[in-house]
Structure formats: C-alpha cells, structure tokens
C-alpha cells in the first residue's frame, strides 16, 4: 500500500506542477502561425525565403518604446535585401495597441494576437521577445528584452542572416 500511494502521490504532484511552454530553440523549424490583422502576409509560411524578424510586443512594455524606432530603422535599411520585420501585438485590448502606435508608428508589418496563441506556440517567456528566422524557415535566435547594448549585436545577426544562402 505504501509504495502504491507513494508513487501515486509523486506522479500526480509532478503532473500537476505547472508545465511551461517549450521555448523555440535555435535550429528548430519555426512554428506555423497566422498573422491576423496584417495588411501583408496572412500566414508566417508566406514569408518563407525572406529573413523574418518577429517581435512580440505590447503597449505596456517599456523596452518596446526603444525597439520600435530601431526596428523601423532596420526595415528601412534592409527591407530591400529581403528582411521582413513582423511585430506581433499581444495586448488584450486593441485600443491600447492603437494608442501606442499613434505615438510610435510602425513602418514594418504588424499582426494582432490578443489571445496570445502565437506567443504560446513560440514559448514567449518575457516581453519583448524577438525571434530571428532564416531564409530556410529555421529559427536562428530568440532574444528577450531590448537594451541599448543589444542594437549592434542584433543588427549584426540580421546582416549575417541575410548573407546566408537560402537552402
């Protein structure tokens, strides 16, 4: 009786413990998501062949105020080289996102995911989270937060991704 109860207890406790979503690791194929509310591509798979930089943002996220001008810059500089930045908004209320955008307009593609389905698939752990996807549709890197020191390193990664040959 003791062994059975013991294993049952341990097993149940383990099963009940909050399971975290698996974060997307570098080298994995990118999860397929829909880009709702986007004026451009409707599905992430439509952007295959381009270097895609996905940024999960929200109006209440402080570092996003820094990252938007940088992303506008990057899209302007490298858009012609095959870079597509997609900002996926995770605000529960669309009006908050619109308010943010009226102050910091985005010159890159936007999608709106109030329920957070795409964030779950990508295993987003912090805000903002950005995911760089290569031309072959594989994740190159996942990055959390946005600080001044990150700008140069991220730009270098973008350049490297664009220089890589598509498979």
């Amino acid at each position, binding site marked *: 009786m003791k062994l059975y*109860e013991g294993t*049952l*207890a341990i097993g*149940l*406790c383990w099963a*009940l*413990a*909050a*399971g*975290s*979503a698996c974060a997307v690791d570098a080298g994995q194929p990118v999860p397929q998501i829909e880009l709702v509310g986007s004026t451009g591509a409707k599905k992430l798979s439509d952007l295959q062949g381009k270097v895609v930089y996905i940024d*999960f943002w*929200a*109006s*209440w*996220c*402080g*570092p996003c105020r820094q990252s938007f001008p940088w992303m506008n810059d990057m899209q302007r500089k490298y858009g012609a080289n095959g870079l597509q930045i997609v900002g996926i908004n*995770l*605000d*529960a209320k669309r009006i*908050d996102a619109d308010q943010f955008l009226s102050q910091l307009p985005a010159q890159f593609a936007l999608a709106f995911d109030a329920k*957070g389905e795409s*964030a*779950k698939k990508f295993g*987003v*752990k*912090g*805000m*903002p*989270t950005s995911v760089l996807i290569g031309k072959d549709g594989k994740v190159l890197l996942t990055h*959390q*937060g*946005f*600080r001044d020191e990150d700008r140069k390193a991220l730009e270098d990664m973008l350049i490297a991704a664009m220089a890589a040959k598509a498979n």
Partner: protein
Amino acid sequence: MKKAISAACVLVLAGCSSLSPPQAWEKGNLAKPEMTMGSDTLDERFVQHIYSSKENASGGYGVGGGGCGCN
C-alpha cells in the same frame, strides 16, 4: 474510499502549483503604474539596488519597464 481520500490529499498538497502563473504577455494589468509600490522613483531604484546587491533578490516591483523583459 482510502484511494479517494489519498487522491484528494495529493491534490491539496499540490496546491497552487497546479495553477499556472500569468504568461509574460498577460501581465498588462500588472504593468500599470497603480500596481507598483508607488514611492519616489529614485528611492525605488535605490532600494532595488540594495536588494539585488545584498540579497541577489529581484522582481516584485513592477512589470514592463524592466528592460530585461524577464519580469
């Protein structure tokens, strides 16, 4: 009967670990300024520094402006 009781006990013991904390993108309400301790910002930065240097403790002081995206 005993099995039912033991199963119930296990559920109680598991406690709130069976409920998941809010996901990173669900913290919009937590990020509002009303949800912070509300004291002088410079003072808060000072206190945060003390906590992190003496206890390596972080967090609990507001979501969204952290810059590391981990809150």
